[in-house]
């Protein structure tokens, strides 16, 4: 079976740290950063990038549309 890998790119300044993408991720890829962006929010980032399958659940639930998703087969 072909393995699928994905990558999540979060617009760090657009993120408001609502945690919905972290909850929606089925593979625990995302988490909130300890650091804050210029607006004071703990923005989301890929904590475990190797687990990402590019399912786009995080992007679909993101209320601020700050997530872009890439996926490819290897």
């Amino acid at each position, binding site marked *: 079976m072909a393995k699928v*890998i*994905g*990558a999540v*790119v979060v617009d760090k*300044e*657009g993120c*408001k*740290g*609502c*945690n*919905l993408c*972290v*909850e*929606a991720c089925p593979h625990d890829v995302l988490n909130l950063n300890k650091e804050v962006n210029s*607006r004071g*929010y703990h923005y989301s980032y890929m904590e475990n*990038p190797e687990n990402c399958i*590019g399912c*786009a*659940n*995080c*992007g*679909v*639930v*993101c*209320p*601020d*549309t*700050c*997530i*872009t*998703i*890439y*996926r*490819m087969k*290897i």
Partner: protein
Amino acid sequence: MELKDLIKPENLVYDKSKVQRDVYMHYCPGCSHGVVHKILSELIEELDIQDKTIGIAPVGCAVFAYNYIDVDWQEAAHGRAPAVATGVARLNPEKFVFTYQGDGDLASIGSAEIMHACNRGENILVIFINNGIYGMTGGQMAPTTLEGMVTSTTPSGRNTDLNGYPMKITNLIAELPGTSYVTRQAVHTAAAVRKCKRSVKKAIQNVLDKKGTSFVEVVSTCNSGWKMTPDGANKWMAENMLPYYPLGDLKDSIKGEPISEN
């Protein structure tokens, strides 16, 4: 594999819609409005109707919707979006007209306008955001507030003897012969968002086909007004709001046709 090899245009699977403007939204973190704006933007792009879409903005948090979705907008007085939409749709029958209203706007002050617009079967899409409170003004009780739900004007919970019962306005609207497609959706999980998007797409298609008024209720959260975290508000909504406001299609026909029993 390095991430930079993966992050290339040919591998892109999900990106912001071009119809959505590149500005930061004023909504609170985790607000359902953002997701519904995104669904609308994606569908307007997908159906290629950007230049023929006219939105009617409400009074409420979504009053600034015209800053976020790049289509023509008209602001309406509180609750009067369906009346304004009626005029816009009748004068521009080739355009796609939608209203975007909250529960304080639609179910309370605008209840007469929505009832009569739906009864006349105007060719408009109504997006109804039901979060159970008046979000913008500080979380006061709305007609849709659940029994026992604590708000800033019902600090010991909604008392049905004093304040009446939560109003299922979507069920009332489904009874009106002017409506074609009436549905209740939510956006609390990825699956629900995808399902909601399919419903809104069908509703837009019905309006384009001039089948009558399409009405999509989105059961939403207001985590600031509910005094919860965004993910906590989603869980609370699934446990408390959804049993009273069950999801699914309430009506799917053409205006003027008899209402089926299902």
